[in-house]
C-alpha cells in the first residue's frame, strides 16, 4: 500500500514539474499577442495599444506568471483547458482535444497491437530455432529495422504499398465511416509498429531462450508435452517481463514518433495539432497536449506495474 502512495506522489510531482517547465518556457520565450491580434500587437498607435491592453486583460496576460500558472492549473484539474490564443479564442481547447485525441489514440493502439502481433510469434519461432540460419537472418532483420528512422520507413512503405501496389489509400478523411478510417490508419500504424516489433522480438527471444533452459521446461517435455504446447503454455508467460516493461516505456517514445508519422500521412491528430500550435505560439493548446501526452505516459507506467503483479504473484507485497 505504502508503495502505491509513493508512486502516486512521484507521478503528481512529475506532472507538476513538466507543466511548470512547459508553462515557464513558453511564456518566457514566446509572445502570444501577435497571434491574437496580428500585426497590431507591435504597433504603437493609441488604438492598437488599447487593443493590446484589452487582449492582455481578456487572456489574463497582464497578471504575474505564478498567478497565471495557478489559475491555469486550477482550470486544468477540473477538465477545462481554457481558450485558444487566437483572434476569436474559439473553439475552446477542450473541444479541439476531444476532436483530435481519438485519432492519435487509435493510431497508437493499432501500432502497439500490430507490434505485439508481429513480435510474439516472431520471437516464439526464432527462440525455438535459436542460432540456426532462420534465427540468424531474423537477427539481422531486426537490427536493420531498429536502425531505420521512422520517416524513412514511412516513405518506403508509402512508396511500396501506397503507390506501387496501391493497396492502401494515401489520404485520411475525418468524415469517412470509422472502418474506412481504420483502413486508412493501417499504413501509418505499420510504420510505427515495425521497429517497435523488432525491439520487442529481440527482448522476448532472449528471455524465451533463458526460460527454455529451466528445469520445469525439461520436466514438461519429459512428461510428453509437445514442443508447441511447452512453448505456448509453459515458456511464454514467465518470459513476458522485460517485454511488458519495454512495451510501457516504449509507448512514450512512440508518441513522439507518431507526431512525425501523423504529419507524413496527414492524419489530423494531436501530433499535427501540437506542431501547428507551437508555430502559432498558441500556448494553451501546446500545454494541453503536452499534459495529455505526459499523463498518458505516467498512466501506462502504472498499468505496467499492475500487470506485473498479475503475471507474477511473487511481486505482490
Amino acid at each position, binding site marked *: 500500500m505504502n508503495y502505491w502512495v509513493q508512486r502516486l506522489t512521484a507521478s503528481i*510531482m*512529475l506532472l507538476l*514539474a*513538466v507543466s511548470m*517547465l*512547459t508553462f515557464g*518556457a*513558453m511564456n518566457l*520565450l*514566446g509572445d502570444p499577442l501577435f497571434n491574437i491580434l496580428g500585426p497590431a500587437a507591435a504597433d504603437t498607435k493609441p488604438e492598437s495599444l488599447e487593443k493590446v491592453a484589452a487582449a492582455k486583460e481578456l487572456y489574463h496576460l497582464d497578471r504575474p506568471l505564478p498567478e497565471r500558472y495557478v489559475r491555469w492549473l486550477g482550470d486544468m484539474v477540473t477538465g477545462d483547458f481554457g481558450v485558444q490564443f487566437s483572434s476569436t479564442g474559439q473553439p475552446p481547447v477542450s473541444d479541439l482535444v476531444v476532436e483530435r485525441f481519438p485519432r492519435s489514440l487509435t493510431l497508437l493502439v493499432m501500432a502497439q497491437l500490430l507490434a505485439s502481433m508481429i513480435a510474439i510469434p516472431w520471437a516464439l519461432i526464432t527462440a525455438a530455432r535459436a542460432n540456426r540460419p532462420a534465427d540468424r537472418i531474423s537477427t539481422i532483420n531486426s*537490427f*536493420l529495422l*531498429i*536502425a*531505420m*528512422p*521512422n*520517416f*524513412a520507413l*514511412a*516513405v*518506403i512503405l*508509402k*512508396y511500396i504499398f*501506397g*503507390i506501387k501496389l496501391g493497396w492502401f489509400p*494515401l489520404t485520411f478523411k475525418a468524415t469517412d465511416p470509422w472502418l474506412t478510417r481504420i483502413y486508412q490508419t493501417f499504413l501509418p500504424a505499420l510504420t510505427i509498429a515495425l521497429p517497435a516489433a523488432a525491439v520487442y522480438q529481440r527482448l522476448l527471444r532472449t528471455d524465451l531462450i533463458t526460460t527454455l533452459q529451466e528445469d520445469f521446461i525439461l520436466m514438461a517435455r519429459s512428461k510428453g508435452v509437445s514442443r508447441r504446447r511447452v512453448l505456448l503454455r509453459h515458456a511464454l508467460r514467465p518470459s513476458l517481463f522485460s517485454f511488458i516493461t519495454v512495451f510501457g516505456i516504449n509507448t*512514450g517514445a512512440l*508518441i*513522439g*514518433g507518431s*507526431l*512525425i508519422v501523423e*504529419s*507524413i500521412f496527414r492524419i489530423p491528430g494531436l501530433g499535427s495539432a*501540437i*506542431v501547428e500550435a*507551437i*508555430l502559432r*505560439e498558441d500556448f494553451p493548446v*501546446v500545454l494541453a*497536449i*503536452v499534459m495529455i*501526452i*505526459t499523463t498518458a*505516459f*505516467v498512466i501506462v507506467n502504472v498499468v505496467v506495474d499492475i500487470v506485473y503483479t498479475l503475471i507474477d504473484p511473487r511481486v505482490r507485497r
Partner: protein
Amino acid sequence: MSDTITKRLGPLFWLAVGWLAIVSLLALFAPWLPIKDPDSYFLVRGERPPYSPSGTHWFGTDQDARDMFARIIYGARVSLVIGFVAIAFGMVVGGTAGIVAGYLRGRTDKVVSFIFIVFLSFPSLVLAILITALLDRGLVTIALTLGVLAVAPVGRLARATTLAYADREFVTAARAIGAGDRRIIVRELLPNVVIPMGALALLGMAVAIVAEGGLAFLGLSVEKGPTWGKLILIGAGSRELEKSPWIAFGPIIVLFLTVLALNYAGDRIRSYYDVREIGL
C-alpha cells in the same frame, strides 16, 4: 595484438568505420572536391527536371535540376555537425552531472536523478519542437537543443556506471592514501565510465541525426542549405515518389547506412569491452 582486436571486432565493424570515415571526409572536404555545385541548376534544353540518375548526375537531380549527389554530400556537413555537437554537449553536461551524482549520492543524487526523470518522461520530440519554434532555426540552436535532449540518457548511464564502481577497492584505496574527491572522480572513476559512454555516444549521434530528419519533416530543421532530412522531405510527396523516387531514396539510403554504421559500431564496442547495460 592488433590481429586479435580485428578478429573480435569483426570485419563488419571495420566496414562500418570505413563508411563513417568516407562520409565524414567527403563532408569535411566537400568545397575542394571535384563535385558539382549543390546550388546550381543543371537544366537541359527541351527536358523538364527532375532528371533520373545518369553518368552526369549519379543520384539524379531534384525538381529544380540540382545535383542530388552534391546536395547529399553538402547535407552531410549539416547532419553530421548536428549529430556531433549534440552528443558532445550531452556527454560533457550529462556525463559530469551523472558522475558527480553517482559519486556524492545523498541529496545531490536525488535532485539530479529527478531532473533526469523529468526530461526522460517528457516526449523529447515535443521539447525539440518547442525550443526550435520559440528560438531560431540556426545550426547551433538545433544542435544544442538535441544536445540538451541527450543530457538525461547519457547522464543516467554515467550515474549507473559510477555507482557500480564507486564502492570498488581501488576507489577505497585511493581515498585511503588521501586522494580528494576531484582526483578520485577524474583519475579513478572517469576512465571506467568513458568506455560505456563512448559506445552510447555513437548510438546517440545516430539518434541526433535521425532527430534532425524528424524535425525537417515537421518543417523545423536548419533553415539554410540542404540537410539529409530536408532532402528526403523534398522527395517524399506522393507525386514526387511516383514520378521521381530517386529524390527521396538517394538521401534515405545514405542516411540509413550512416545510422546503421553508427549503431553497429556502438554495439560492437559495447560488447567488445563487455559493458553490461547497468540499470538501463
